[in-house]
Structure formats: C-alpha cells, structure tokens
C-alpha cells in the first residue's frame, strides 16, 4: 500500500505532479453494504480503516453529509494525551497513544504526530496534590508522567509568569512527555485513503435522513443519495448525535450538544515547544509548525448546534492567556471558529452495540475526541465486527448512566461540561 515515499515525490516532481492518484475514489452508493458508517469524521474514518485492516470487513461505506473531515476532526486544537485517572480511561487513551505512535507508518501518510509533551500547570497545593495523584495513577498503569517544579517549568517554558506575584502563582506541573499534537486534516485524509485502498466507499455529500427498519431492527439508511441497505449501521456523528439518533426513534440520550471555540494567532517565531494548560481557569495552548499559537478554553456553556460561539468566551480565553503569558498580550488573533461537541453527562465516551438491533453507537467525546480517534475507531470496529465490546471499551456503555457506573474523572456529578 506504500504510495508515498521520497522516491515517489521525486518521480512525480519530474512529471509535474500530474500522475498522483486521488487519495480516495468518488463512487456512487451501492444498494447494499455489510456495514454503513454514518459520519465521515475522524472516528467514522478510523472505524472504516480498522474494520478493513483488523477484521477483513471491506464491504463498507462511510456516509458523510458534507465533505470528509469537515466536522470537528478538522476544527480541533489537536491535543493528544493519555493523562487520565480512572482505569477505563487510562487503558483506552493509552491504547490510543500507542496507535498514534505508529500511525504515520501504518497509514503510509504523515499525520505529523509530534510528541512535544503536555504540561498541566497547578496553581494551588490542593491542585498539585490532585495532579500528583493522577500522575501516580498513570505511572502505576505504565504511562509516562513527570512532576516538574517551578524552576524546571521556567526553563521548559520561557515567557510563562512563574513569579510569586502572578495572579495564579504556579506551584508545579504534571508533564506527560509522550503527549503532543498531530495534523488534524492529515488524520482524516490518511484514514480515508487507507480505507479506500482496501475497498471502502467514501460517500460524500450524502446526508442520512432516516433509518430503514425491519420491526425493531435497523437494516439501512435513507440518504440524500438514495436508500442504502446494510447488515449493520454504525453512527459516529459527534455533535450531531442527538439529531441523527432521533431519526432512529431514540429521542433521549445522556448527551447535550454544545459549541466549543478555538483560536489561532498570527505567526510568531518559535515560542513554546510543548502543550501548556492553565489550571487557574481553562486554557490550553500550543504552537503550530507555521508559528501560530493554537489555543482554546471552555465551551460557551449553552446548548448549541450553531458551529459558532459568542464573544464573552473569546474575552475570557484571551484574558487567561495574558495572565499566563504576559508577553503575548500584544499578539494579534488571526482566526477563530466553533465546533459542535457531543458532551456526555459524565465526561466519558460511549462506544457500544445498540441501542437497537443492527445499530451501533459511538459518541460522547466532549472536549477530547481527537486524541481518541485511533482507539475509538479500533474499539468501534471490534464492537461492530464481533457484536461485543473489546475489554478496552467494555465500560463505555450507554446503560452505565442508569446503573450508577458512570466514569466521572473528577467526581463532579451529572453535567454536560466535563472532559
């Protein structure tokens, strides 16, 4: 499957780059598939790839209402980490991290995975205790975590206000060195191309408008490009989960859709070579290869499907940034945008067979579904292929909310604003 290499680059340069094959075909929908995946975001595309590569299921279509990668997979701040506390999350996200570490090779597509580390800053002794406890849980599970004191932090992140006079003084920070960032579009395109080469059909501009049923069982979808029958229908539509599942008659889920904004500044010379998060509020920032600071904060906080946010959050995020990096206060903002996120009521995802026969559901990614992309696709493919969860996603059920088995990292209780 190796099409991209230094040699291929050279050869195609000499022929004026006219001979590259498109990354994926544009087939017409077939009347029937073994599996139809609804949603051509990172998770849907990764699911298609792993169905084909791990389970030999290649009679698959990915049905996407817009273009591949136009949803949250192309709108996020690309942070990848596995620094969780609870066993269900640490196991799952560390599996994802391991898949990231070999992903460019597996897909023969450079996803620009950059293990530049993530530093969670702590600003109170209580927060430091909490982070150290999380770091210990990670190390216990064989995941890398390092506690850094303010002097080490000052050396690692120049420009950070580590003085005792800072509005939120920094008492230390939890670093996961293997964390980092990746090129979001490349992740979508790389999975799409790899799945396409194994025979998966990418059906773009094809919106699911309803489900075909045989009694209780889901046996296909109706779309803007006609009816498509399928033995199994797998839904991975992130922020659109509520709308799509209503078409299947599921009118209540432990999910709310909310808008999260992201921001990019003008290009700067290299300023930070790691991802930094602010514990005094909610801010995460890294610097892209082009030099822009890529950052974000909290969701706007009210139910939304509008893919754009409001100014109070912009102001809050900017003020947090200025508090943490006073020297950046004069940096100009270049772009901002919003994405609609599937906020689950305990901050953890759902990857499950059901809730109807023939239907499979992947949702509840909150702030952090990009880093989950490989493991989410891997576990969802397993669940679809075998009709039972892999141990890594066995806890991510829909019933857990009604059984008191929620996976709530901070023990905060039911609220659609966790991560």
């Amino acid at each position, binding site marked *: 499957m190796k099409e991209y290499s230094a040699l291929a680059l050279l050869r195609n340069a000499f022929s004026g780059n006219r001979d590259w094959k498109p990354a994926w075909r544009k087939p017409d929908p077939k009347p029937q598939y073994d599996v139809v995946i609804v949603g051509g975001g990172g998770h849907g595309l990764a699911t298609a790839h792993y169905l084909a590569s791990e389970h030999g299921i290649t009679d698959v279509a990915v049905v996407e209402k817009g273009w591949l990668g136009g949803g949250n997979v192309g709108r996020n701040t690309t942070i990848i980490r596995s620094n969780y506390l609870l066993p269900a999350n640490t196991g799952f996200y560390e599996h994802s991290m391991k898949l990231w570490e070999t992903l460019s090779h597996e897909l023969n597509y450079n996803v620009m995975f950059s293990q530049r580390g993530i530093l969670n800053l702590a600003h109170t002794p209580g927060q430091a205790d909490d982070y150290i406890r999380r770091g210990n849980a990670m190390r216990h599970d064989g995941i890398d975590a390092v506690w850094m004191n303010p002097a080490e932090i000052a050396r690692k992140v120049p420009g950070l206000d580590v003085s005792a006079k800072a509005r939120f003084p920094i008492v230390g920070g939890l670093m996961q060195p293997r964390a980092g960032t990746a090129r979001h579009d490349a992740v979508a395109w790389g999975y799409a191309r790899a799945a396409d080469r194994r025979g998966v059909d990418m059906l773009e501009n094809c919106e699911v408008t309803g489900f075909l049923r045989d009694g209780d069982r889901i046996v296909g979808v109706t779309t803007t490009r006609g009816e498509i029958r399928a033995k199994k229908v797998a839904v991975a539509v992130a922020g659109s989960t509520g709308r799509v599942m209503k078409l299947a008659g599921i009118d209540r889920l432990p999910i709310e859709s909310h808008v999260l904004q992201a921001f990019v500044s003008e290009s700067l010379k290299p300023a930070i070579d790691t991802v930094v998060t602010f514990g005094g509020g909610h801010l995460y920032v890294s610097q892209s290869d082009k030099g822009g600071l890529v950052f974000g904060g909290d969701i706007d906080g009210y*139910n939304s499907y509008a893919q754009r946010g409001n100014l*109070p959050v912009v102001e809050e995020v900017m003020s947090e940034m200025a508090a943490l990096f006073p020297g950046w206060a004069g940096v100009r903002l270049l772009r901002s945008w919003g994405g609609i996120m599937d906020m689950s009521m305990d901050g953890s995802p759902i990857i499950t067979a059901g809730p109807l026969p023939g239907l499979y559901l992947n949702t509840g990614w909150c702030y952090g579904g990009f880093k989950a992309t490989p493991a989410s696709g891997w576990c969802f493919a397993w669940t679809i292929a075998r009709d039972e969860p892999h141990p890594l996603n066995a806890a991510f059920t829909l019933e857990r909310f*009604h059984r008191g088995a929620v996976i709530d990292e901070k023990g905060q209780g039911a609220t659609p604003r966790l991560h």
Partner: protein
Amino acid sequence: MLITCPCCGPRDVAEFTYQGDASRSRPDPASTDQAAWNAYVYDRVNTAGAHREYWQHSGGCRSHLVVLRSTLTHRIDSVRFARDEADGARRRSGSPA
C-alpha cells in the same frame, strides 16, 4: 448574544448563568422510582431548534428566566420570568399554587 431581561432590558449574555433545558420535569421528591430519577438526571432531548431553557440574570436582578431560543441560530424569541411560566403551568394542570 443579548438576552432581554423583562426586568432590566437587553443585557449581554455574560451577565447570565445558563441552567439548561426547561422542559425537563423533576419527579416528585418523595418518588422512589429509580428509572424516573435516572432519566431526569442523565437523559436529555438535546433539541435542535426551538429550545425552552432556564437562565438566571445572576449579574443583574437575579431573576430566574425561561428563554425560548433556537439552538441552530441562537436567535431568541421570548424571555419570561420563570415564576410566571410556573404559575401558568400550574394553572394549566389544575394543581394548587
């Protein structure tokens, strides 16, 4: 986004605290129906379109409000005091105030 508080007039959304879907109804506090409580705490309709929702003017007159807002466009169609909505609901269902 501006919310026109019936007491204070049009104010920036930053003055308000969002309190979620106003169409949910809490089971009777004495109820021991586990399924009903679970559904109340965790399950959401997650409406795409006209959404009745609670806001409090916490940075102003502190009134609790019921706002009718489209989750697709953020357009606000009505803002009323929550107590008036509650009185109306009680009258409609015929239960004592």
